[in-house]
């Protein structure tokens, strides 16, 4: 008994019988004391805390990829009218061209048409989209980062475009891939699709996994026994090979891949949640709820799920990083997203195919490494935050 025990189980006895030496701080956001302590623990892990911020900034920025790297201007003022090519598609005829096709704003002809009418264009910082081919490459694709080019290499393009030197070229900061597409643009889009895919996969597989684990743990007995054996058989299927076979039959796309990966990824949380429910179903407050006549579904949702969520939350960042990794691996092997989509795995496989162009491999490697490291660091901090024994060490 005594303070010794309350030191070990702070979740239940935060207020000491002796009283607090210092009154608790007041916060503007009214978090429960447990949540507040968890947030404190999370921020105490500086590496994880900064990783979270860096990751969030990168992710939010990449969500606006169309406004950062695009082959369409953000805004055009043409003939006294305003146009927003990023948001809407206009045909070439709008600007006085000849074809009914969508306008290609990188075309010097169209640029000239707009300039003649006294129009102005505002471009995103990077004037390439993930699928824009740079037609003015000074060297054969994959082409070096522009700042590494020598004047001699630039000369043909500089002369054709009547510029003064290399520095006036449109920059490819990290070079281009083997089809002359800008790598920075592809990175931004690729990062976004990876994280979005990872997040979607994590959320859906958690929902399925938590539900399956909850049912098994709560009902136990035969339900548990049969389900567990099924999961054992299911997990012993070599999933990667199966994924390869399925993705060579079905046309791979974002949602097809999501479905295929979901077939196997939901299992990862089942054991954890099942254990929590098995433990929790004999708690006295669960018995008390049963004695009140509360239905099983309500008991599972209201009383047991919050307990299981702690373990689940701790696991989520790791599930997320493994989802991202699986997608990258499939892309690398060529069984992932359809050809042409911006993907980190494809960048890596291009790097492997073009060893003479190290900017491909290096960029791919560092992006994946940094992204996964950030996720792991966040995961560690989350784990710290939910660790009840961590609370007293400071």
């Amino acid at each position, binding site marked *: *008994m*005594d*303070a*010794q*025990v*309350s*030191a*070990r189980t*702070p*979740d*239940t*006895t*935060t*207020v*000491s*019988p*002796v*009283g*607090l*030496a*210092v009154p*608790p*701080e007041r916060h503007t956001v009214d978090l*429960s*004391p447990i949540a507040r*302590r968890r947030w*404190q623990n999370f921020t105490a892990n500086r590496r994880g805390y900064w990783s979270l911020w860096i990751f969030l900034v990168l992710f939010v920025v990449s969500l606006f990829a169309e406004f950062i790297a695009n082959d369409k201007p953000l805004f055009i003022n043409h003939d006294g009218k305003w146009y927003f090519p990023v948001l809407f598609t206009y045909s070439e005829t709008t600007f006085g061209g000849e074809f009914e096709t969508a306008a290609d704003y990188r075309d010097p002809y169209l640029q000239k048409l707009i300039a003649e009418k006294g129009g102005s264009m505002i471009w995103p910082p990077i004037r390439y989209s993930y699928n824009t081919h740079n037609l003015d490459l000074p060297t054969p694709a994959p082409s070096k980062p522009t700042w590494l080019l020598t004047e001699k290499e630039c000369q043909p393009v500089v002369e054709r475009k009547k510029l003064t030197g290399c520095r006036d070229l449109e920059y490819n900061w990290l070079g281009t891939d083997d089809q002359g597409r800008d790598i920075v643009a592809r990175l931004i889009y690729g990062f976004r699709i990876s994280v979005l895919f990872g997040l979607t996969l994590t959320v859906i597989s958690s929902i399925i996994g938590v539900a399956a684990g909850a049912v098994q743990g709560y009902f136990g007995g035969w339900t548990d026994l049969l389900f567990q054996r099924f999961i054992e058989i299911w997990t012993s299927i070599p999933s990667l090979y199966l994924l390869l076979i399925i993705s060579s039959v079905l046309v791979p796309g974002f949602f097809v891949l999501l479905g295929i990966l979901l077939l196997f990824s939901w299992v990862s949380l089942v054991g954890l949640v099942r254990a929590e429910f098995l433990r929790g179903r004999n*708690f*006295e*407050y669960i*018995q*008390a*709820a*049963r*004695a*009140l*006549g*509360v*239905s*099983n579904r309500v008991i599972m949702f*209201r*009383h047991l799920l*919050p*307990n299981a969520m702690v373990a689940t939350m701790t696991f989520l960042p790791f599930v997320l990083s493994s989802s991202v990794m699986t997608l990258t691996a499939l892309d690398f092997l060529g069984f992932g997203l359809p050809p042409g989509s911006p993907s980190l795995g494809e960048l890596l496989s291009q790097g492997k195919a073009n060893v003479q162009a190290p900017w491909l491999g290096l960029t791919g490697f560092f992006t994946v490494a940094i992204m996964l490291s950030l996720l792991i660091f966040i995961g560690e901090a989350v784990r710290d935050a939910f660790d009840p024994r961590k*609370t*007293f*060490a*400071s």
Partner: protein
Amino acid sequence: MMDAATTKLLDVRDLSVAFRQGANEMLAVDRVSFDIVKGETVALVGESGSGKSCTALSILKLLPYPAARHPSGTVHFKGQELLALPEHEIRHVRGNDITIIFQEPMTSLNPLHTIEKQIGEILDLHRGITGAAAQARIVELLSQVGIPDPASRLGSYPHQLSGGQRQRVMIAMALANEPDLLIADEPTTALDVTVQAQILKLLKEIQTRLGMSMLFITHDLGIVRKIADKVCVMSKGKIVEQGPVERVYTAPQHAYTRALLAAEPKPDPAPLRPNAPIIVETRDLRVWFPVKRGVLRRIVGHIKAVDGVSVSVRKGETLGVVGESGSGKTTLGLAILRLISSDGPIVFLGNAIQGLRFKAMRPFRRDMQIVFQDPYGSLSPRMSVSDVIEEGLWVHHPKMEAQEREQRVIRALVDVGLDPETRFRYPHEFSGGQRQRIAVARAIVLEPTFVVLDEPTSALDMLIQTQIVDLLRDLQKRRNLTYLFISHDLKVVAALASRLIVMRHGKVMEEGPAAEVFANPQSEYTRALFAAAFNLETAPEGVVAQ
């Protein structure tokens, strides 16, 4: 040379313990001073949270440092300042000069090691005794602590021993190196009353034989009087009173000590009502858990948790169910409420409810409620008090207006003596006694006729116990409730029960009106149980378990 009897063996001066939690620091022990001379037993008494265990653990520096620290104080043991000793030196003191016995014999022994290995480890560690010499010493120790046929017990694992025997093994481990001081941290709290009496007797015997000192930590004043020479009463981290046991008991100085000594539930049970309608009746109720063996999981036998129990409770009465742990009293309560499956008819308010499905049981649940033992475990930590209490209303009166529901919650809280304004707080903000009141409020908000009280007071301190007993009695009178009161604490049962059944091994040993059974117990077992509970006396051999 000073006289050995007056030399201070342990001298604690101005000891404080503070725990840090984030930016906050709380003082668990506040400038405590006491001393122990050779051969003396000093008892530290107080409620949970009063800092008694903390004080004891700081003597051996067993607190979770650096979260804990000592803002002030010294601990001198045989002239050595223990608090200043570095970790590797204090290890020679631990288990050698000062040993400690913990409360929970179930978890204090490593389940994967044999008894011989666990005791042998200490001998090897501090004395370097191994092999045959160690074995001989272990057998000697085990016979000292009264384990029958010790040589054959050497290879046993903890799970093969009963709770009392495990505590004996713990004591044997503590005695292995003939310590000068034995710290016993609530060594009998987790044990049954009959076993508790045996262990206390053993400790007393060993202490006189070996001439060692003992620091005995407990919340039970009855034990203190039986075993200690000197007593220190702790409250809120301070020692409020200390002195020779007789003096403190006969002439307590401090108000807190007086309150503690007076804290005994007053016997005022509900009267017998032989003509009142029967609320619950069971006939030959059985709860058998099958024991399965082999590949085909054939049923080879049964654990008979409840074995043919017939009870009937009349309206307004309290049926007390007493017995040691494992006697099936809690199982009986759960079976009557149909929370575990059982065999044999159960009649509730004139309806046969045995075998009804979950949905069919629901209308009856409104009239039958339960209050559990552990007020920390029985309230969901993630629901506010108001959510906890109104949950039953949602189930049984789903169409009730929000306002009326709130009124019912407020009324229930007022009835159990809590401020209704606290209903938006979470359980962790309440003390154990307050939580138990919340659990009672949850049970009575549905206005039931029948409430099972499953050891509702045993996790609480003496003072709080009395309050809860008064509350339960008061509620019974006001709402004409019928109780099934399950407890191993006979003093509390005596305060509440109008009828009594004594259970052992799933069977009823004795039953009758409570006053008669207490005054004139028929079976030998009941007599032994009463003697152990009221006078801490051991029973003759063979009557109760070891």
